[in-house]
């Protein structure tokens, strides 16, 4: 039985990938006991005791390295933790920085390098796309309001207004674009990315790179229904050869290590790279469901094993997300608030 900690157990309207990862781990060959890592006592995963045996609150990564590391070591001590699979963008830089130290304490991970992680910044997308033989929408990286206004006069609406790492809005008018620009600057600062809107099919690929140019499987999907936040609600597997080839080039060229998701728009023969996520997406259970158990393969890689590499999955499998609810006692919440664990 391997003790694995997984974060991102916030299964809310903008769900974290944690529960999908955990479902995958539980369906894998290696028996696991799961520790859920949460940042808020209300994260739904805390209350799903069938999936998560134990749950702990972590300090926010913004509080710094020392409290974060101490908390992880405390959990390791108490639970006999062996592997951590972090699943949230905001905590990843810290986990990557701490990787060697965690390893020296016997805590294993399977993460991208700091250099690889930086590729996800949207101002790096054109460079990545070129390296793997696909395109990016016409993109401007803007460092001031003046530059933004100048860019607006040159672009055709609608446009996407994005933060470097987070937030993306579609603006149909200049007034809307300005409003989103200010919202992003206020929350995330400069630069702000402005991008032309490319029409086409929204297709994503998930995979796990082995860090040596190969991978432990890829699965491509098309989003059929999305929520108002742009999150997938239903989807279908596809076997778009150009997209899968691009994903293989990505892994090979950057020698990617760990989980990743490439978000693209496919328009005829053209593939546009929209986003790189250096982690599993929230729909990761889709890959598990079509027989490519990427979370279990990543776990095996983290444990130093040689995971399966076959990734022949069927096109036309459907993914349905649904809401669920449960009723429980206040006791668990109380314990999370007072002790930070259950």
């Amino acid at each position, binding site marked *: 039985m391997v003790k694995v900690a997984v974060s991102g157990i916030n299964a809310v309207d903008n769900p974290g990938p944690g529960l999908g990862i955990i479902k995958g781990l539980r369906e894998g060959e290696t028996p696991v006991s799961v520790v859920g890592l949460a940042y808020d006592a209300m994260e739904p995963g805390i209350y799903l005791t069938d999936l998560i045996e134990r749950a702990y609150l972590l300090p926010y990564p913004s509080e710094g390295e020392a409290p974060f590391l101490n908390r992880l070591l405390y959990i390791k001590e108490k639970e006999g933790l062996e592997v951590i699979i972090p699943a949230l963008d905001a905590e990843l830089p810290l986990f990557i920085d701490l990787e060697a130290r965690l390893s020296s304490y016997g805590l294993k991970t399977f993460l991208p390098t700091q250099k690889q992680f930086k590729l996800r910044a949207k101002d790096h997308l054109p460079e990545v796309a070129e390296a793997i033989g696909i395109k990016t929408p016409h993109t401007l990286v803007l460092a001031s309001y003046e530059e933004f206004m100048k860019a607006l006069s040159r672009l055709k609406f609608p446009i996407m207004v994005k933060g470097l790492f987070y937030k993306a809005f579609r603006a149909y008018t200049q007034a809307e674009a300005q409003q989103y620009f200010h919202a992003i600057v206020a929350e995330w600062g400069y630069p702000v990315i402005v991008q032309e809107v490319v029409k086409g099919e929204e297709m994503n690929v998930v995979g796990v790179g082995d860090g040596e140019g190969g991978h432990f499987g890829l699965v491509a999907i098309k989003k059929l229904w999305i929520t108002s936040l742009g999150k997938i609600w239903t989807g279908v597997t596809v076997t778009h050869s150009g997209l899968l080839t691009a994903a293989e080039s990505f892994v090979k060229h950057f020698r990617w290590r760990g989980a990743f998701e490439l978000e693209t728009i*496919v328009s005829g023969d053209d593939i546009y790279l929209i986003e790189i996520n250096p982690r599993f997406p929230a729909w990761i259970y889709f890959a598990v469901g079509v027989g490519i158990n990427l979370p279990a393969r990543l776990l095996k890689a983290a444990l130093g094993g040689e995971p399966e590499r076959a990734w022949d999955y069927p096109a036309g499998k459907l993914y349905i997300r649904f809401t669920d609810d449960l009723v429980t006692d206040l006791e668990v919440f109380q314990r999370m608030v007072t002790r930070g664990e259950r």
Partner: protein
Amino acid sequence: MKLKRLAISEEGFVFDPETGNSYTVNETGLLILKKLREGLSLEEIAEIMNEEYGISREEALRDIQDFLEAMARFGLWEEKYG
């Protein structure tokens, strides 16, 4: 040929594994798709439609061409046909 990659069910449900798009076709559309995949010419398909549905070859050929134009709009047909 894009037709080759399509998954076509007996009920007329058509799935494109490359794009993830799905379509439905009626009985006639299903017949045309199947025969095209078997490599029959448009004239040969018109002949079958003439036998099956009792419509003239000319009318059948027009219907086939209309159908192929619709397919082309969805990016499923790109070959020149006469």
